């Protein structure tokens, strides 16, 4: 057992964890934040994506101990009270989810894509950046549309590409 401090969604917390604890298990089982999902055993689906110190990671493939002292952002921390984050609102309005299982990972990833491309985004870039997130329901078109819509709401210019809809 080791003791670690993490700042999760702005709140400092202390945890006692064995070495082998994955960040996703700490979040779900110890912090009670079950919005971060586990969708695979092979580090491929992205349902578990959170940000650690400002970078997106698969929380199923990082040890809690590797994050010691770090800043964690999960899906629970992005809305302001009842007011949805623009990416959440855009996902809802563009029908970018069906069962919703993959959605927390997509939303965190989408926020990071938009924030790291302040100069502008197009559909092709969004598709490329979504390689690490798998959705078994929607077929991606609405997800890409939602992210571009959210980018505009967040003041990021959107360029047209010859994208089929």
């Amino acid at each position, binding site marked *: 057992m080791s003791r670690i401090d993490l700042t999760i969604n702005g709140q400092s917390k202390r945890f006692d964890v064995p070495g*082998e604890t994955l960040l996703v298990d700490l979040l779900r089982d110890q912090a009670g934040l079950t919005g971060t999902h586990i969708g695979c055993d092979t580090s491929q689906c992205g349902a578990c994506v959170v940000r650690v110190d400002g970078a*997106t990671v698969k929380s199923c*493939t990082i040890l809690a101990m*590797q994050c010691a002292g770090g800043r964690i952002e999960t899906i629970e921390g992005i809305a302001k009270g009842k007011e949805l984050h623009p990416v959440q609102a855009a996902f809802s309005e563009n029908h970018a989810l069906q069962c919703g299982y993959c959605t927390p990972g997509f939303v965190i990833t989408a926020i990071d894509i938009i924030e790291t491309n302040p100069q502008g985004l197009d559909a092709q870039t969004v598709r490329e950046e979504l390689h690490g*997130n798998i959705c078994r329901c929607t077929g991606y078109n609405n997800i890409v549309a939602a992210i571009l819509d959210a980018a505009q709401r967040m003041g990021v210019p959107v360029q047209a590409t010859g994208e089929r809809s």
Partner: protein
Amino acid sequence: MNPFHYHRPKTLAEAQMLFRDAESPRFIAGGMTVLPSMKARLLDAENLIDLSKIEALQGIEARSGRLRIGASTTHATIANSAVVRQMLPALATLAGGIADRHVRNRGTLGGSLANNDPAADYPAAALALDAQIVTSERTIAAADFFTGLFETALTEAEIITAVDFSLPDRAAYTKHRHPASGYAIVGVFAARFGQHWQLTLTGSSAYGAIRLMAFEKQLVKGATPDGLDGVDIDDLPILEDPSFPIAYRRHLIKLMAKQAVAMTIDDVSI
């Protein structure tokens, strides 16, 4: 995962001492191979020694006409580095095409070389660019470093600290990636030094990354990219795999090689 102890040393000496004193130890860098393998119980360790906080394994530096990159540098950092993009843009492109953005934020150059997966991208660059693999003990030429599938010249407790790449006149990397994993089905790295080329293959070879000598010989004689069409590559040791048959891979190898070489000749982008 089976239980293990986790250690986070601050210096190379401390990391090596921990490794030598611990039961069933293993180094972990980004963990993008170690953790999936441990989760799948393909790999076991009682002590994981994290190299990511050791300062000596970090940093990107251009000096005496070469580019030195610390072993703990992540794929994302290499892809976005202004120095790499200016001095060796093909390496930045290669790094930006590994896996996906989340894996690139964690996986490291040193971890990838130490792992020597036959479908990994960096070994092709290291071999084509005559990289020197700098370790805690010595310096190893890339050609001597990769010794077989998932095998390297690294000995017990030896740690890669940096990789020192030579700078060609031009270089390019072309990759046909596996649609699910992102790993290379065929990747070709082409480096042009004056009028001779070093061409390497990853993703298809049964021995891990290898030089494509038959192509190199043709190019030195003045062949154009299309001139590679006629080269006999039937001798290449290609992996047999029902999803990607040998004939298909051979076709891709020529296609990727032609594209990569063309990019080292044209003044278009790399």
